[in-house]
């Protein structure tokens, strides 16, 4: 970051809009919903000045449809919502997965289920981000833990979407969306553009089974690449097929394309993990509290570490397994009733204890609560406090 950039006080939602612009966003369609509306409000001011388009649509479904349409026409596109809206968008998110349309879907999570707690934080949509739309499908979900990190991960969301022709979910939560923090934004960011066609129009296959699993993508327009896009199972030409061989091939490439690039996508931050006997797995705003709890425990001489996951999907199973083999216990505090704890348990496959800790009363998990969990785990395990 350049020292020339001024320090600013911004909320996560404001920074998300700022980062989206820096990443090349030129089309936003949304629908008002707490606690994400500030993203739309900010972009309503920014986009028309920057040669982009902002639209408030008639509903959440329309917003998601418009985003996919604009991206197919070659423009970087995004929408932002919260739980109820995220539910409504799922069908068209599935279309974007199937038709391989890059786009970013921001979900500033609030308490659920249903209308739930519009102004209070939660992390109840982490499984919906993975499995909200029907059928096997690939998805990427990122979880920032601070305002500054929201900038970084918003840019990354666009870059991953473009690189892998896939929707990317940016899973914020009400705390990250609304908290105001000091940030120093970078002067420039690295921006990835989608891979364009490498053939003449008559040779172009919009869903070619390429070596890296990502087909080059033309844009609707006048360049002559007239291609067909459908949510139906299709072959390399993009047209519907009922051929079981082609259908199987499509589904396996679709789901395999993120798997094979998993190492480039998965992003974890390890804090004090080297000699840890107890570890915390956390993400989003909870990982912020967890970091403080770990530092406080370390000050007391407790050997505890933190694995902070900045990508929830694909899940960092290898990294979690590795950690599970080193420590006796992994604590999983989260603002839901153990959604990711299940995933952690599956990843460690019995290598260590996994202790879920869920809070679903609309209040954030405090560092003190996590510290208490750490101390309980240590005393249960009889792990000694180092002198």
């Amino acid at each position: 970051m350049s020292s020339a950039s001024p320090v600013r006080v911004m909320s996560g939602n404001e920074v998300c809009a700022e980062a989206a612009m820096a990443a090349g966003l030129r089309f936003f369609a949304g629908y008002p919903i707490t606690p994400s509306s500030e993203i739309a409000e900010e972009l309503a001011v920014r986009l028309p000045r920057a040669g982009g388009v902002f639209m408030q649509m008639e509903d959440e479904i329309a917003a998601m449809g418009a985003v996919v349409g604009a991206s197919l026409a070659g423009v970087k596109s995004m929408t932002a919502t919260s739980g109820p809206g995220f539910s409504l968008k799922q069908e068209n998110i599935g279309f974007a997965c199937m038709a391989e349309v890059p786009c970013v879907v921001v979900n500033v999570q609030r308490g659920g289920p249903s209308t739930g707690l519009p102004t209070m934080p939660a992390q109840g949509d982490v499984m919906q981000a993975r499995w909200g739309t029907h059928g096997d499908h690939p998805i990427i979900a990122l979880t920032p833990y601070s305002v500054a990190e929201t900038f970084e991960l918003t840019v990354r969301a666009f870059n991953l979407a473009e690189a892998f022709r896939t929707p990317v979910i940016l899973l914020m939560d009400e705390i990250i969306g609304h908290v105001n923090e000091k940030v120093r934004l970078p002067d420039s960011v690295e921006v990835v553009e989608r891979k364009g066609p490498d053939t003449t129009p008559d040779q172009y296959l919009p869903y070619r089974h390429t070596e890296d699993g990502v087909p080059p993508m033309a844009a609707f327009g006048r360049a002559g690449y007239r291609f067909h896009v459908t949510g139906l199972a299709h072959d390399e030409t993009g047209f519907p097929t009922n051929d079981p061989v082609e259908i199987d091939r499509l589904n396996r490439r679709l789901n395999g394309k993120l798997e094979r690039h998993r190492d480039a996508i998965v992003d974890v931050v390890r804090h004090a993990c080297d000699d840890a006997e107890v570890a915390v797995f956390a993400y989003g705003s909870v990982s912020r509290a967890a970091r403080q709890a770990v530092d406080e425990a370390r000050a007391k001489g407790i050997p505890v570490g933190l694995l902070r996951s900045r990508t929830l999907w694909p899940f960092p199973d290898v990294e979690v397994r590795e950690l599970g083999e080193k420590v006796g216990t992994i604590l999983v505090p989260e603002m839901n009733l153990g959604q990711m704890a299940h995933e952690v348990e599956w990843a460690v496959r019995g290598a260590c204890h996994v202790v879920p800790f869920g809070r679903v009363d609309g209040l954030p998990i405090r560092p003190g609560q996590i510290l208490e969990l750490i101390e309980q785990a240590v005393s249960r395990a009889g792990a000694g406090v180092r002198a």
Partner: protein
Amino acid sequence: MTEYSKYLRLDKFPLIWCPGCGDGIVLKAILRAVDRIGLDRNEICMVSGIGCSSRTPGYVDVNTLHTTHGRALTFATGVKMARPDLTVIVVTGDGDATAIGGNHFIHAARRNIDITVILYNNWIYGMTGGQVSPATPMGARASTAPFGSIEPNFDIAALAAGAGASFVARETVAKPLLLDRLIERAIRKKGFSLVEVMTPCPTTYGRLNNAGDAVEMTLYLREHAVSKAKAETLSEEQRQDAIVTGVLVDLDKPEYAEQYARLAERLRAPAAFSRA
């Protein structure tokens, strides 16, 4: 004489539609209109939802997008705003556009965005096997209204007009040469335009309602079609089964993409005109 083959993906033939379906007549009318305007294949984007009508784009050699049920207009809105230079045509049906997609239909019309909607109205859900639609006439049978529909049906053209469309027309497939003229005018119109095309579904609607074969159903459409001017002279009772055809709305009003461009220009203009 239109050389249809230049606009068609002939390798995708035969068409998915049943024998006697009117959808092929609409497809040809669209191609005649496009040809007469002289549109290049690369400058058209044809978008559809789900249903029989929505299979049309697969056969047309332009930029084509077959979306989710009812949502064609939302995707089309994104395409149009990202590439205002493209001619965007939405192909949809009565169920797709006015049931599951009803909200998008009225709002696209209200916005008056420059999209042309060709709505194939066959009074029923054909592809899924003949379920009742918002266009099914009251009393008519459908697989999910086995004792006759007890719901009033939409006047789809009036719905679009009420919502703010700048061009609204209705025609039947019994008059294909009038149909392509209306589609041509709709595409040329700057703003949201709708051509509601009455087309027979002998396979589901015809069978369930003893409405006869394709020929009989097409003759029915021809016999019940009346011009707007003539409809005004009819009594309410006479108008009951009439299909009012022709141009129903033709207004000049601000179009959304142009309004947006104007706003963007104003924001880039010197401070006196700018908000900030």
